[in-house]
């Protein structure tokens, strides 16, 4: 092949700019950020002596808040993924334009107004907000519900709303990849709707479901803005501690150790869940 050498040189040149951006503004800062987690702040100065003390601090002080964040994120990811799956399932298997409309709304609001969405829920869920107003108007309640806002529930509702379009996309993409014929064949062989769902549809869109769950789970674990605006003083995510280590206490090492500990814990929980999911799907088919 005469074009082999020149074409591979061109390929390298084409990828180089993006790779440079990735290296300089992601890989190197990430690596440095990791190193920082082993250093310390002494008299407002970064001291480059390797120590595990930050991680010891994290385990001693922040383990409960990491656990709380992961638990809340699991709940959010589970709700969002199931919700998204139900929507994507209807889009794929029901005729007509309603599905297309939902998909269009999900797509176009995907990157629209992260802060605006949180703010909107803050006004919606407040004691004088529209939800309380509506409930009182139709006479379901007499006093406004005070547990709607500034509770973990508010964080769950807000993040489910924000993350739903992110989850619909990968699930829909994988459901769209399922041909009609295997589904028809399963009906033809006598399978009930539930069996078709569990044994034919779900295993074929495993990638999409896992991607949706991972995306929503990871983003929820790291989100702190939502908790800060609608969670109230008692709903603090680990991200709130991380950013306050930076902003208020100017202690990057602790913040970094906290970040990497959370990342590791999240990864372990996620991998364990995925393993369990595979096992469950495999068990169904036996």
């Amino acid at each position: 092949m005469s074009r082999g050498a020149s074409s591979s040189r061109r390929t390298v040149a084409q990828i180089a700019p993006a790779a440079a951006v990735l290296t300089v503004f992601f890989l190197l800062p990430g690596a440095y950020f990791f190193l920082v987690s082993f250093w310390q702040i002494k008299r407002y100065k970064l001291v480059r002596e390797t120590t595990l003390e930050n991680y010891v601090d994290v385990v001693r002080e922040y383990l409960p808040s990491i656990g709380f964040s992961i638990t809340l994120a699991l709940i959010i990811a589970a709700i969002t993924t199931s919700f998204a799956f139900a929507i994507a399932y209807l889009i794929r298997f029901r005729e007509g334009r309603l599905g297309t409309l939902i998909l269009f709304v999900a797509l176009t609001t995907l990157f629209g107004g992260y802060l605006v969405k949180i703010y909107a829920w803050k006004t919606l869920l407040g004691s004088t907000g529209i939800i309380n107003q509506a409930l009182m108007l139709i006479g379901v309640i007499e006093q406004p519900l005070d547990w709607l806002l500034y509770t973990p529930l508010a964080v769950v509702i807000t993040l489910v709303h924000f993350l739903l379009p992110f989850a619909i996309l990968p699930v829909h993409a994988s459901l769209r990849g399922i041909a009609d014929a295997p589904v028809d064949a399963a009906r033809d062989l006598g399978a009930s709707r539930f069996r078709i769902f569990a044994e034919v549809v779900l295993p074929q869109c495993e990638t999409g479901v896992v991607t949706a769950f991972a995306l929503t789970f990871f983003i929820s674990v790291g989100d702190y803005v939502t908790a800060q605006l609608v969670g109230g003083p008692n709903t603090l995510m680990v991200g709130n501690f991380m950013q306050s280590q930076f902003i208020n206490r100017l202690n990057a090492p602790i913040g970094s150790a906290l970040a990497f500990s959370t990342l590791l814990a999240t990864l372990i929980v996620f991998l364990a869940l995925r393993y369990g999911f595979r096992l469950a799907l495999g068990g169904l088919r036996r």
Partner: protein
Amino acid sequence: MRRWSAGSLSFALFSLVFLLTPLVLVVLFSFGENPHATLPFGHPTLHWYEELFANSNFWAALKNSAIITLSVGVLSAITGTAAAFGFSNMREGPAQIGLQFITAPVMLPPLFLALALATAYAAIDAPQGVLTVIPSHLVFTQPFVVLVIYSRMATFDYALIESARDLGASPLSIFLNVTLPIIAPNLIGASFLAMAVSLDDFVITFFTIGGGMTLPTLIWGMLRTSLDPSINALGTLVLVMTVGSSIIAFKTTRYRG
């Protein structure tokens, strides 16, 4: 394809209402006299927009947002398209690994990237401002362009390029006269997607801009300090811009989900 049952139909409608209500309310409040974001909306008014436009912070933030968003749109179109061409020349396996690398910044919570960048910028004493925000955005917007163009190239008819070569066209001429016109809709769509992502970003901007302001950090400031009702007007503008870019993006690429 089955028909809609009453249950599935009401679930679908609920989903639509759930997705849209918060956004619709912000828009409605921005045009209503009632300053408290409660019902009723009050008489229609443009008062909150007038108030917003009289705020010098708004214009400063808009200027920064415009500079960042447009730069990120152009730059990610360049680096992303070039990389997508590179990956589509490679075999499937290595290309997938490369794609995983390039898209890694999107997979992490933004706070991690923000803190890592803020720490690194502090370490080298980089003066923080618009110039540090642009590359910080670029690293998580270029993956969108790479993915869109890469999937377009998967169905690209390479016989066109070979015919052009056969007719004696130079590589540059082939790119400008053959490849670019064909992928232009996807490229425009991908750039608008990148711009929507950049325009809407709060976390990474907040940690890398130093003292400056963009539209999202202005919203943040308004949320933290006062109950300024013109926030609805500002929110509506941000929604119009981000949702507008997304609509352009999906219409031009004819994306169907």
